[in-house]
């Protein structure tokens, strides 16, 4: 799922400075799961903001709402009445949710409350790690189910760099070397031969967002 973490508090305070009444909108999906923008974390942020503003002598009124998801227009619609009562919205959903609100409410300022960080996996409770970079052309079948694009600092496609040492990455010493993981897993699966095939360079400009925002259009589904 999408993983996010709260933006620096001062940053949020700064762009909310002109407003006296806002809506803090959480999201009941991905950001709830990663404890960044669900009802609990939204309420914590709201409480902290109210206290900070009171301390500054400029109290702020914060309404709170957490739709089940923020990235679909129908869910955004739930907020219509509330948004009519406020000067701005602080959305603690991922960047997609913020933009859904922005599209649906053209007349209201929508601010992000979290940094959408990556698509990742829960490694342990409270620990999330990046797993997919949405590169647009999956090669996991060649790499034993471990993605070198998302997990190798240098996004190498054909084996580790010279900096891989004792299974760790030279860029970030505490991180596992993705290619070590790929090798170990291929070996234990008896699939080492797959690694001898050369993976061609990725066509970033064609497959990925280097050629602008991507879209998927399914003519058969359109209404």
């Amino acid at each position, binding site marked *: 799922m999408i993983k996010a973490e709260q933006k620096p*508090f*001062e940053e949020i305070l700064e762009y909310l400075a002109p407003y006296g009444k806002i809506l803090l909108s959480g999201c009941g999906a991905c950001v709830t799961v990663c404890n960044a923008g669900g009802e*609990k974390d939204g*309420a*914590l942020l709201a*409480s*902290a903001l*109210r*206290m*900070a503003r*009171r*301390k500054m002598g400029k109290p702020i009124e914060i309404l709170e709402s957490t739709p089940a998801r923020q990235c679909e227009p129908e869910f955004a619609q739930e907020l219509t009445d509330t948004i009519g009562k406020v000067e701005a919205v602080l959305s603690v959903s991922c960047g997609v949710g913020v933009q859904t609100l922005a599209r649906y409410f053209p007349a209201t300022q929508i601010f992000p409350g979290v940094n959408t960080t990556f698509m990742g996996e829960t490694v342990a409770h409270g620990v999330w790690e990046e797993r997919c970079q949405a590169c647009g052309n999956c090669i996991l079948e060649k790499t034993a189910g471990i993605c070198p694009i998302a997990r190798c600092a240098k996004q190498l496609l054909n084996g580790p760099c010279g900096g891989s040492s004792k299974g760790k990455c030279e860029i970030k010493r505490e991180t596992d070397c993705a290619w070590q993981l790929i090798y170990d897993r291929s070996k234990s699966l008896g699939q080492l031969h797959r690694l001898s095939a050369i993976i061609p360079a990725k066509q970033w400009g064609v497959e990925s967002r280097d050629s602008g925002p991507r879209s998927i259009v399914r003519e058969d589904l359109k209404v």
Partner: protein
Amino acid sequence: MSIFDPKIVAFCCEQSGVPAAEMAKTLKLKMPDNLELVPVPCSGRIETLYLLKALESGADGVVVFACYEENCRYLQGNIRLKGRVGYAKQIMAKIGLESERLEIFHVATNSGVKFTEILMQKVDQLRQLGPNPAK
């Protein structure tokens, strides 16, 4: 000028803090005047939000009376609480609130005297800090 009488919200675990408070009451020990005791079934019930809300809605200081570590009747409660108090302190630091306004104390059922001593010390400490600027 009247002396500042800080408001303290004390969350008390029913396995330790509550009996300690009752003992203090039975012993007729001196308690702070401006004190609100909030009983909880386990200190693990205390949400991070409760800690912040207490400060937001008028407390000058928040204390939690929990069981000693490894003594939790529900095994993990006071350990989970420790993490939440740490997180709440991070948030308080961002707001600019002093860390002393929130603290965990480990007590046993028979810690009546310790219970009041902690609270009276807290009163003195909060008097020096002054009123909670964010309430």
